[in-house]
Structure formats: structure tokens, C-alpha cells
């Protein structure tokens, strides 16, 4: 493993400030460019050093990362990258193979998993969901869904209707207060964040995504079904220990007690807007 250097920046993931060092060279520039709206010089709460693996492992498409938490340590291993994080010390390393195209994604994969476990400790969590703020800026909607469910599609549609996209792939749910909050993350699918994200927005509702010919909105009345549906959209649960899983259940239960969970059937147009309480945009872009 080769150390890269001391060039550092702070990456903000919701309220979590992650100090990233080793940002030299093309990989460092790619990371700063990818996360630009979330990069600052502020004080970091946890620190992660980027390193290089000595050589490329070659073809690795058949290997998935293996993650384990043991005590205060998280270890993630796969041929192309490795990450270790000590939760007690708040420090870790991410070592990636020299791959000019994919290295930035190796780093992001590790950052996502580390962030998830740190957030779970705080009573928050990363949810595999699009998050969009209403044009009025006072409420946000979460659209959980697996890959291909339409998170980026609905994000793009709602952005075109005046909404502010917190992320089209991964948002933070904070259910520690009476009214759950949604937070932006630097982690996105196909829609890079275009402008600085609002810090925390009260969550109005969850809308579980399902693409269908005709739009419809159905309330999931059963709390256990609602929790289970959201659970299936929480990434990296396979590496959680028992304590993480209990905190995860508690966080989701608080959330579904506070805001409604719906199944949203939608198609690739704005016909779902009335179901969200949004009017179809006029040519002047005026919404209510």
C-alpha cells in the first residue's frame, strides 16, 4: 500500500464532516470535482486517508466487496479496493487500485459504507432513495426504490417542476426529532448536485417507487409493513452488527410513526404531481 500525501479537504455528508486526505493527483482532483458542492475546509469529525494499492488486480467484475464489523472496526475487502475504519478513533483508510476510471467509484463505495455505520450510531441512516424538496422549500419527499425503480427519473421530473433534488440515489433520514428530517448527500446516481443543498428539510412523506402505466398513491397503513418496506431500501445492512440493526429498526419505527409511507405508482411524466400535492407547472413555472 502506498501513501499518497497530505492534501486534504472536508466532505460533508449531511451533518457528518469527513476529512479526506491523500487527495493528490488525478484521483484527488476527480473526488474534489465530483463532490464539489459538499467540499469545504471546515473541521472534520472523522478522518479518512486515501492510499493506493500497489498494483491493479486485473479483472474483478465477478467479485463483490465483503464487509464485516467487529467491535469498533469495519473492514471491507475486495480485489480493487480495501477500507478499514476504527469507529472509536474516528479514523480509517481507503486503499484503491490504480484505475483511472473506476478509482473514484471505489472510494465512493467505501465512503457510503463508512458513512452509513457512523450515521446509524447517531440515530440517522442512509436510505436508498431520491430526495426532493418542494418548490416552497419547507418540506421534502423521499422516494425509496431499488436500482431501476425510477429514482433518477422522478428526481429529474420534479426538478423540472421546481423541486430541489437532495440526491437521486442516497439521502439521509434523521428521525431523532419529533419531525423526521431529510438531508442531502454527495452520493448521486445520474444527476450530480447542481447547487449547494439545504442542510435539513422536514420530511413530508415517503413514496415507495413503482413504475406503472397509471399513476396512483396508496397509503401503507400497516406500520410493520411500512418499516419492512423501508428496511429493504437501507443499504449495507448485511454488515451491521446486532446493535446497528436494533438502532436501524428504532429509527425507521420513529419515522413511520411521524410521517406517512405510500406506494407511488408513476410513469415517466408529471402525472404524479397532484398525488404529491404539487400543481402541474405553468409556463411561468409557478407552483403551489
Amino acid at each position: 500500500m502506498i501513501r499518497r500525501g497530505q492534501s486534504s479537504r472536508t466532505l460533508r455528508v449531511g451533518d457528518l464532516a469527513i476529512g479526506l486526505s491523500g487527495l493528490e493527483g488525478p484521483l484527488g482532483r476527480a473526488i474534489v470535482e465530483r463532490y464539489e458542492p459538499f467540499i469545504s475546509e471546515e473541521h472534520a469529525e472523522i478522518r479518512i486517508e486515501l492510499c493506493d494499492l500497489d498494483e491493479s488486480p486485473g479483472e474483478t467484475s465477478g467479485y463483490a466487496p465483503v464487509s464485516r464489523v467487529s467491535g469498533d472496526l469495519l473492514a471491507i475487502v475486495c480485489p480493487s479496493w480495501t477500507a478499514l475504519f476504527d469507529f472509536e478513533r474516528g479514523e480509517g483508510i481507503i486503499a484503491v487500485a490504480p484505475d483511472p476510471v473506476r478509482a473514484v467509484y471505489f472510494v465512493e463505495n467505501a465512503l457510503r459504507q463508512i458513512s452509513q455505520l457512523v450515521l446509524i450510531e447517531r440515530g440517522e441512516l442512509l436510505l436508498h432513495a431520491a430526495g426532493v424538496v418542494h418548490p416552497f422549500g419547507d418540506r421534502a419527499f423521499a422516494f425509496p426504490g431499488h436500482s431501476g425503480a425510477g429514482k433518477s427519473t422522478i428526481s429529474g421530473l420534479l426538478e423540472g417542476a421546481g423541486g430541489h433534488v437532495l440526491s437521486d440515489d442516497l439521502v439521509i433520514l434523521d428521525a431523532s426529532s419529533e419531525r423526521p428530517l431529510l438531508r442531502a448527500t454527495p452520493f448521486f446516481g445520474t444527476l450530480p448536485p447542481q447547487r449547494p443543498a439545504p442542510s435539513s428539510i422536514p420530511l413530508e412523506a415517503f413514496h415507495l417507487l413503482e413504475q406503472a402505466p397509471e399513476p396512483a398513491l396508496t397509503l401503507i397503513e400497516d406500520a410493520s409493513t411500512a418499516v419492512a418496506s423501508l428496511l429493504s431500501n437501507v443499504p449495507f445492512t448485511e454488515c451491521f452488527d446486532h446493535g446497528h440493526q436494533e438502532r436501524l429498526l428504532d429509527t425507521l419505527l420513529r419515522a413511520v410513526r411521524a410521517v406517512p409511507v405510500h406506494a407511488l405508482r408513476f410513469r415517466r411524466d408529471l402525472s404524479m404531481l397532484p398525488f404529491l400535492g404539487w400543481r402541474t407547472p405553468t409556463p411561468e413555472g409557478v407552483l403551489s
Partner: protein
Amino acid sequence: MIQSTACVYRQNTAIAWREIDGEAVLIDPSTGTVFVLNRVGARIWDLLSEPRTQFELVGCIASENDLGVESVENDVAQFIAALDARALIGVER
């Protein structure tokens, strides 16, 4: 596989779970798989916080629901077998 009625069953303590409005949500710790148990399933799960035989479980469920033992026996046995197959419970034979 349905075990002998003499077996003693108990929750796998590695399972994270919460009771929600009479139902139960469980997470398999090894895979992250989520299970939702209905009210009767959640009641059996709750009873399994202590070591129980299938005979005891059948008796409790029948009594609490004003049903005959024979009408719940098969369902309880199948449910226990399903929990066992997923390692959600431990079995002492």
C-alpha cells in the same frame, strides 16, 4: 423439517427485532433479510423469548384464540419449522 414435539425452541438472540402494533419485524443478521410476522406469528415469537416446546406453543395459541388444539397444531408446527429453517430460532433436542 418439522422437529419432534419434545424439542425445546427459543429465539436466536442474534436476531434484531421489534414488535410493531402487535406484529413483529425481524432482521436476519447474516443476510440483512427482513421478515414480518403477523399477530399470531408475533405472539409465538414473543413466547419464544423463553424456551418452549411445540406442545406449549400450541396450547398457548389455542387457548388465547379460543380454538381447539387440533385446529392450530399444524400451523404452529409449520411456522416453527420455517423459523428453524431460517435459523431465526435455536432448537434443543
